[in-house]
């Protein structure tokens, strides 16, 4: 009750729709060709190190990290490089991409050997060589996160709060050994004493499994999480698991990050990928994605080579149902994922779902006048006040936006989801945040 007075932060009670949770991962047939963009992470794009006509194998380095905050990129198929050219990504930005014609043999590059890890530095080198980024959706380079040395708690994000998606569920059920070895390596070499695995309560079988497997691991605990979206949002997860709050501003004046409160969050699939890499030396070249929605013939979990086109993924899942008109393609979950204008975009490292919605399911209600019910405020996981912020933004009131901490908005969409007037509230929040940050930078520049 008292906490409710501070901020309600109830989140949204989204439907689960985890129909694919029980479906074992199926390997997708190797597509004819893949298109691998050089920007599948936050930070600088990778620099292509292959050219047209080169022969590549699975795991061959094709893009070199373009800076400290960047990530290596490897070929997901064996074959010939068709082209290295700029492409328009699904989110509208343009970056270079390597198109590769697959020969279908999937020959593994002999250079892929398990790395030798003896301390933190060699672990970070290995993580970079693996090309690992946050696989939950954000795509932040993992090695950068783990480089901080103020961390005492590793939080494993297995909340999977987005509706439909079940890739993390499958990871836990199918690859628990590499999850544990990955956690073990991070804790050991980065000298992190505690680890909390946060799993939403709608996955009881995963909770039970993880409980029984981690019983003998010192410092590792499993935390069942309430079923509220966005439970898997980094800051919300840290608060629920540890009670700590990621500060809005770090001591250096930049935006706060989990390391500022002694935490680092890794997605469960990321940590498992690390475990696999340490064992086999095969870098991140495939990704499990949940293919679901009312328009797809055979929903399921698919292990797709990175760079496979949506078109081929849909084909591998039996295509679109014949009697359904496809209305929307969503990459990611329905709350934070984006809508794709066509099926000619590639699967990225951080993609974890592809939803095919019929025109009917994709239809959204029209916006009505705001009735000032305050539901957006109750839902906002960050304790923001969207309806108030919208007003401040309308007046372009910089100070008010600053006082209302608009920069904390994590674009989770909860406010839009709960609005009874069906207003696109989170869109307004995104505009307000962009305007605020621009003004702020302008002021700082002066």
């Amino acid at each position, binding site marked *: 009750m008292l906490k409710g007075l501070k901020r309600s932060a109830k989140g949204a009670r989204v439907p689960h729709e985890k129909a694919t949770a029980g479906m074992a991962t199926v390997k997708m047939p190797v597509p004819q060709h893949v298109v691998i963009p050089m920007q599948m992470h936050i930070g600088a794009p990778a620099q292509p190190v292959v050219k047209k006509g080169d022969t590549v194998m699975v795991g061959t380095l094709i893009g070199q990290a373009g800076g400290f905050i960047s990530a290596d990129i490897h070929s997901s198929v064996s074959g010939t490089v068709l082209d290295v050219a700029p492409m328009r990504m699904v989110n509208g930005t343009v970056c270079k991409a390597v198109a590769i014609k697959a020969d279908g043999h999937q020959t593994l590059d002999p250079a892929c050997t398990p790395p030798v890890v003896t301390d933190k530095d060699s672990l970070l080198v290995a993580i970079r060589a693996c090309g690992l980024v946050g696989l939950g959706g954000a795509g932040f380079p993992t090695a950068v996160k783990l480089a901080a040395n103020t961390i005492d708690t590793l939080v494993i994000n297995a909340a999977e709060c987005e509706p439909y998606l079940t890739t993390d569920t499958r990871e836990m059920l199918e690859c628990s050994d590499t999850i544990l070895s990955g956690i073990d390596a991070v804790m050991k070499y980065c000298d992190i004493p505690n680890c909390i695995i946060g799993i939403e309560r709608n996955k009881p079988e995963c909770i039970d499994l993880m409980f029984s497997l981690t019983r003998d691991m010192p410092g590792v605990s499993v935390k069942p999480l309430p079923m509220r979206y966005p439970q898997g949002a980094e800051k919300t997860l840290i608060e629920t698991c540890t009670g700590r709050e990621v500060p809005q501003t770090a001591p250096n004046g930049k935006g706060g990050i989990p390391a500022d409160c002694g935490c680092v969050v890794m997605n469960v699939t990321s940590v498992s990928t690390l475990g696999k890499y340490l064992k086999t030396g095969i870098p991140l070249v495939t990704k499990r994605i949940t293919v679901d929605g009312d328009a797809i013939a055979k929903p399921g979990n698919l292990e797709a080579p990175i760079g496979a086109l949506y078109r081929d993924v849909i084909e591998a899942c039996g295509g679109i149902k014949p009697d359904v008109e496809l209305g929307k393609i969503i990459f990611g979950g329905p709350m934070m*994922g984006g809508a794709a204008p066509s099926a000619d975009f590639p699967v990225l490292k951080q993609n974890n779902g592809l939803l095919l919605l019929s025109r009917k399911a994709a239809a959204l209600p029209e916006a009505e006048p705001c009735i000032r019910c305050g539901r957006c*405020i109750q839902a906002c996981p960050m*304790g923001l006040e969207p309806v108030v912020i919208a007003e401040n933004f309308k007046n372009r009131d910089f100070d008010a936006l600053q006082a209302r901490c608009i920069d904390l908005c994590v674009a989770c969409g909860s406010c839009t*989801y709960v609005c009874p007037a069906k207003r696109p509230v989170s869109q307004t929040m995104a505009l307000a945040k962009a305007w605020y940050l621009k003004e702020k930078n302008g002021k700082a520049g002066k």
Partner: protein
Amino acid sequence: MEEQRLIVTASPHIRDNSTTRGLMGNVIIALVPSIVAAAFIFGMRSLLVVGVTVAACVGFEYLYTLLLKKPNPVGDLSAVVTGIILALNVPVNMPLWICVVGAFIAIVIVKQLFGGIGYNFANPALIGRIALFVGFATRMTDYVYPDMAVDALATATPLAVDAGGVSLLDMFLGLHGGMMGEVCALAILLGLAYLLATRTIGFAIPGSIVITMFVLTFAATRDLHATLVELMAGGLLFGAVFMATDYVTSPFTTGGKVIYGIFIGLMTFLIRNFGSMNEGMSFAILLGNLLTPWFNDWSHQIPLGRTKQKKAKKEKAAAASAGKGGAA
């Protein structure tokens, strides 16, 4: 695949199934017990009054938006809610034309002239009631008493008689004089239960109003019986459940709602005990409505991980002390 026609919108791609119309519908359902109770206690004319007032509210809203060529909002049912609440706020023998006047004030003047739903500064039905109270005072206090009540209540509204002689059961069932909707505590509590169960409203506003009134009255009288009578008499319960909780005119945050509720409870107590009016509730809610922007300002939530802006604070403090210095 006909990809040219794919829909591209910003996330999220799903919405919950709440709608303005649905929420208003919930309020209407929650009001049904009170309408039925009014029909039982005061006779069938209650239904006529409710019907005419609702029709007038919807009609005015429709006409107004038609004349100004605005989108027609009647579908959101908010005018129906206003109509029912206004009707339940008058005595049963109210002449129908006065009800229509009340509807005009509520819908046209308070709601639409300020921009329609979401923009009114006070609850339209509440202003309707207050306007009728001010304009037609004798009519508004011309209570009809149920035939069934045989005790002291038969002659006056319980706020005006010695509380000691009042049967709590009669009070609870609504066998006493008053406005149509506010007499039957049982019906109002049923409505409240429905509103809470459907999450149409939270407990913060009605809870803090009633608890504040209870504590203050009990402290003043030290008599549980009198306190309970006081709580069930007049418009307190009906106002706390159906009128103070109007979304547009109550604060956003839980903290704000609690402050607002305590304020309304306190004002009701003060007006009832030290003012000249027995019916303090509507004025208390009106004051609360008008102060809502301030309550909103005082009750902002603390965002997750907020870093206090020390600089801004210091500057403010400096400005404040400088101001003081200048004044001295």
